[in-house]
């Protein structure tokens, strides 16, 4: 299968600061990739480069296009919800549909209507009368009605309450995603997407810190809960992170045989959030 995105030596500088420092990654079709990193890590810069919204150094191929030089072509093949997604406040819902129908050849009004019918939004409403959650629903209805192979979501559920957030991913998984489509998502709410992801990329200071399929993550990383008297033995096996939990110590290992570890205590599957903290901080007492 051809990759949807291939980046080789991708770099981006702002003056002295390297927002992206020579990064390589590949994204295959039919994947849901989480791009996770602290503020200022380079996530949004990477997404912008991918969407042709910024110049960059290195090689970047998005579905056969150079995003910066062939942006107009590329825009027919990708969709994007920005963290600062804004619609004009005076716009009516029906006008938003008219507009996208007019500018995007891949847009299906019928699909958009289908998604809108599941919400409380009416066609006559102006954007300024919609709640924040409804604006996101409108965005999503429009974006999912555009038949493209790559959907980029930058903090799509920021500021939404838990019901809207759950519903957002339920709709994406139930009505949109299939093995021909690819989704790249960034979020700080890692715990709500961790089971959705097929691949995980951690980025920090413009560099990739981790890039694995979730299957590999499950193979490679394991947490071990150890009683105080066995801590030295656990430490000797080379944990990448450790912390105190309920009077016991929790060690996180990378690439250490589970068999060997299980003799010292209880094994657990680390959450993406815990893995993230470990990878960002390194070994800390």
């Amino acid at each position, binding site marked *: 299968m051809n990759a949807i995105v291939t980046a080789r030596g991708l770099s981006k500088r702002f003056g002295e600061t390297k927002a992206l420092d020579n990064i390589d990654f590949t994204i295959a079709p039919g994947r849901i990739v989480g791009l996770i990193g602290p503020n200022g890590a380079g996530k949004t810069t990477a997404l912008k480069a991918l969407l042709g919204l910024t110049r960059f150094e290195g090689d970047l191929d998005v579905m056969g296009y150079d995003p910066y030089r062939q942006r107009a072509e590329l825009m027919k093949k990708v969709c994007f919800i920005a963290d600062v997604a804004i619609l004009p406040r005076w716009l009516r819902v029906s006008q938003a549909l008219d507009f996208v129908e007019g500018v995007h050849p891949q847009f299906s009004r019928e699909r958009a209507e289908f998604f809108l019918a599941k919400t409380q939004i009416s066609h006559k409403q102006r954007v300024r009368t919609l709640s924040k959650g409804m604006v996101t629903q409108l965005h999503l209805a429009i974006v999912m009605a555009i038949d493209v192979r790559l959907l980029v979501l930058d903090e799509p559920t920021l500021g939404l309450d838990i019901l809207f957030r759950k519903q957002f*991913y339920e709709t994406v*998984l*139930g009505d949109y995603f299939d093995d021909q489509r690819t989704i790249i998502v960034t979020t700080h709410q890692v715990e*709500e997407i961790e*089971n959705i992801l*097929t691949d995980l990329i951690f980025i920090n200071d413009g560099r990739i810190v981790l890039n694995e399929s*979730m299957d590999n993550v499950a193979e490679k990383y394991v947490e071990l809960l150890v009683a105080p008297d066995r801590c030295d033995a656990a430490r000797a096996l080379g944990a990448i992170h450790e912390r105190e939990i309920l009077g016991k110590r929790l060690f996180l290992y990378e690439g250490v045989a589970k068999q060997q570890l299980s003799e010292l205590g209880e094994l*657990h599957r680390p959450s993406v959030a815990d893995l993230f903290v470990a990878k960002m901080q390194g070994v800390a007492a």
Partner: protein
Amino acid sequence: MLLEIDLDPNWNDSQPIYRQLRDKVVTMILEEVLKDGDALPSVRQVAAEYQLNPLTVMKGYQELVDEDLVEKKRGRGMFVKEGAQTALLRDERRRFLDDEWPQVIARIQRLGLKVGELLKKLNGEER
């Protein structure tokens, strides 16, 4: 239960999720929530409801196919195989008799309980 909206499926972190999904379906077959020949909810439906990536769901279903409990019908989805519940019950019974029953017997003997007392109790509860 799988077919109902379940906001918190309570995955534990000691087993992979696909494995826990497999166990959920097995329980449903044993409890006859899913009967022989019944369709399993689609991968898409489970993925959306439980907020799981579809590959995880497929992996869980594949386990059931490999165990001969579920069959894939082209273009129609997954179905509980004829005799799946019987086979599961047989396994569960064997497991009980081999693993749990000896422990129960040992406990009965430790407590000095008589067979007669136990039967009386059993009949009393069934009435």
